């Protein structure tokens, strides 16, 4: 556990010295089409110069064009419009092979996390605070679905490698890559 903490802190502190953390949006939105999203889908977002991996953000789709997002120390966990997530250099949609009932429970479970504080240094077993990829991981784990091993930190890259998730769509600021 400590070695992963050290490794993670080393990477993040190195990138922070270069001014990189959540990445910098290059200014050209993707032409993402979110009409086919299902509740429980996971959006991974990429901006250049992220400090902790390729994917710089992860959010959960709730349905009705709403996203649950834990990204802001000031505002905590909040609901946002899905259209806002076109403003990344790259967006990918991942979907778990689960029943509609499970999707419904995932969304219900996720809504309980609304307004929880943001804490990047909160452990996975800490239910009182969230950060982006931890929120997604916890919501699925409460339904018995382990998206990735419970490391000290779960980052969006860990979710992108999950064997429980399939890529549904992928957009860059230039074109849709495929679905």
């Amino acid at each position, binding site marked *: *556990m400590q070695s992963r903490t050290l490794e993670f802190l080393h990477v993040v502190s190195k990138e922070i010295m270069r001014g990189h953390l959540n990445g910098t949006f290059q200014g050209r939105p993707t032409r993402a089409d979110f009409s086919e999203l299902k509740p429980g889908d996971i959006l991974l977002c990429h901006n250049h110069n992220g400090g902790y991996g390729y994917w710089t953000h992860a959010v959960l789709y709730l349905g009705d064009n709403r996203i649950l997002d834990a990204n802001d120390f000031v505002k905590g966990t909040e609901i946002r419009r899905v259209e806002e997530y076109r403003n990344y250099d790259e967006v990918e949609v991942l979907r778990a092979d689960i029943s509609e009932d499970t999707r419904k429970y995932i969304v219900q479970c996720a809504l309980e996390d609304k307004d929880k504080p943001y804490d990047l240094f909160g452990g996975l077993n800490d239910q009182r605070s969230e950060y982006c990829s931890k929120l997604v991981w916890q919501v699925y784990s409460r339904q018995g679905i382990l998206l990735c091993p419970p490391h000290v930190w779960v980052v969006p890259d860990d979710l992108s490698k999950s064997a429980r998730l399939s890529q549904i769509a992928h957009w860059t600021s230039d074109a849709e890559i495929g679905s």
Partner: protein
Amino acid sequence: MGRYLCDSYIALVVVSLFLIGHEGLELIVASGWLLSTWGILAYSRQHGSQIWRPFLLGLLSQLPGMVAALVSLWFLEAGHPNELANGVLELWVNPFMPFLELLPAVRIGQWSAVYIAACFLPIALFVANIGAYYLCRPSVEICMKLVKSGPE
């Protein structure tokens, strides 16, 4: 005492990063830091330390957190949230996050209650240390008198 006040909080922040996932231990370590700091302040008063010394050193030891909070709030008011200031503030208050997370998960206006509390935490720690300087010694003396008098 000055060196302890300034260095020990930075050490506490570093240690708290390695206690991620162990909220119980974080609580114990943070509480231990508070008690030892108050003990040292009470001891310094007993040995003739003037108030200006713990006041100044207490202020200096929490200055990074106060500056981060001020910068964070200033940029928010200007409409351009500053990621670096928010990150430094979050790191600075990390040892006491298990306490802050006991607050209700609500937003006050557009801001999380925990964020508002985090902005005030450096000031609260400074005030608590000054309070300990004045109150700890009399409290200890009262307890010692009660123990010595005992049941008649």
